[in-house]
């Protein structure tokens, strides 16, 4: 899978797809999952990232999500944004159908 996790990245968040409908979700500070990137917990070291991913794993057993993984984010203005094109597209929806995906229901984040 291309455009996946950059091994040297330091600023990280955890994402997965929801089991029921495949929706893109993000692991939050509270240990739950949100459809919105703005709710994603962001950590700033590789070690913290691995620890967060471990905390997210029980959600697989709990039938909430499939395939959690870490991805790189960057500081952007007052918040953060995914680095790769892939994660930007997952965050918003297809760039060729702005009426579909998360971007259809929520303004771009």
């Amino acid at each position, binding site marked *: *899978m*291309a*455009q996946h996790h*950059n091994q040297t990245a330091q600023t990280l968040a955890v994402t997965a*797809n929801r*089991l*029921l*409908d*495949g*929706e*893109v979700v993000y692991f939050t500070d509270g240990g739950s999952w949100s459809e919105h990137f703005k709710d994603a917990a962001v950590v700033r070291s590789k070690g913290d990232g691995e620890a967060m991913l471990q905390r997210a794993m029980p959600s*697989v*057993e709990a*039938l909430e999500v*499939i*395939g959690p993984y870490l991805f*790189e984010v960057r500081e952007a203005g007052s918040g953060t944004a995914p*680095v*790769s*094109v*892939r994660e930007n*597209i*997952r965050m918003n*929806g*297809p*760039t*060729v*159908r702005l009426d*579909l*995906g998360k971007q259809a229901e929520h303004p771009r984040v």
Partner: protein
Amino acid sequence: MYRYDEFDHKIVTERVEQFRGQVARRLSGELSEDEFKPLRLMNGLYLQLHAYMLRVAVPYGTLSSRQLRQLAHIAREYDKGYAHFTTRQNVQYNWPRLADVPDILKDLADVEMHALQTSGNCIRNITTDPYAGVSADELEDPRPWAEILRQWSSLHPEFSFLPRKFKIAINGAKEDRAAILFHDIGIGMARGGNGEIGFRVYVGGGQGRTPMVAECIREFLPKTDLLAYMEAILRVYNRFGRRDNLYKSRIKILVHQIGAEAMAKQVEDEFAAIQKQGDTLNVPPSEVDRILAYFAPKNYESLGDFAPETEEARLADENFARWLDVNTAAHKIPGYRIANISTKPVGGIPGDMSADDMDAVADLADKFSFSELRVTHKQNLTFADVRGKDLHALWKALDERGLASANISLITDQIACPGLDYCNLANTRSIPIAQEISKRFEDAELQRRIGRLHINISGCINACGHHHVGHIGILGVDKKGVEYYQVGLGGSSDNNGSIGKIVGPAFARDEIVDAIGTIVDTYLKQRVNGEEFLDTYRRIGLQPFKETLYDTTQH
């Protein structure tokens, strides 16, 4: 077209209920994702970037209007109001919910459709010429044999766990419109020494990471031997194909490693062994006749080739005249034409169609083409049997819905895979590149002047967008999370199949469309005597393109 018999109905219905149980067990936690994944893939269900994706088989690309309406219904009811026609003549839905998939499969089964063998290491949907049965240059209709192959390969226990996926294409016309040289097995209808019709068999073609043109291993195969010979090839592959390395597991690698001659020998030995066991793989003549009957010529009217109403409209309306010229093809019956519906309006998404348009097309198929249509590997739709005198009415109805783009085989008739807008394996986006190129070359007169030119775009090396065989092929490559595009020139999937050659370093996202512009300009300057792009390229080679491309873009 073929209608299910009791066995087809039983198999498909049972599979729906089996999958319903599997989904329920997944949702209750009885099955883990690792356990469930192979089961869902066997039913055409993938997980993509934003959601699940369901791939529905369209056997050899043929659909009835009733089936198309059901596909539209599914798009509306369970998805987001559209579907995507693929380069394998199939249909994909991009947003189904897991819990809804059994109901979708049930709705498909109601119209004799399913999603079996659209994934996994099995024999995939058999593909063929979208003009099969009606083209003027055809030796014989390949569809009955595509159907026989479909039945033989459906859930074939010996070939359900091959080293890798396996694709078979069959073509019955002089012109290869099924890209048979780029399939694991390519079958061309051919004439034997006594004038009888049978098959020429090619093996080991393919695209992906290691593109290869198939080699002919049998100049002539009698019809009765088709299944035994297929079985022999598959057995040799099953025995010798590599299972230890994903990238070396396709039959093309085996053919490449041992050579076509040795491959032919292995297959012939196996074939002889199968034949010794008796004629169990011969399709009984009564069964062949039963299947042939489904593909019997339609109830054609006796019409003259000249339709005055069409001619009048052609003279009066240049848009219609252009569509007639570009989107229709010769039919073997006087007074009929083959009409193509492009899914590629300027700036559109190749292969996508809204549920409303699908319903409209189904209605038009009822009205103008014996309630049937075909999906093409170029992601367009074909009405195979349109009366010449109905062409203007058909065009008008299509035009009203924005479905009358007159661009078949022109530069804006691009193949583009879903790419990074949807696909989990993608390096880069494909669709926006196709959209920008189509806008760049929007002008109909410019397109006509450029002539036949196939641009094919894949978002990764898996080559679902057939970039290796594009006259201009574009491959998305990932450079540290940034999209780049590599360009190949001179590919072709027709009778003189060839694999495109990479022209030089990849182009950035904001350079690629200009690069295509430069390639086209270079061709227009270099062409002589009305050559097509491919002729010019084959005459002058890569060098002139390299010079203009890399001078102008400063690589």
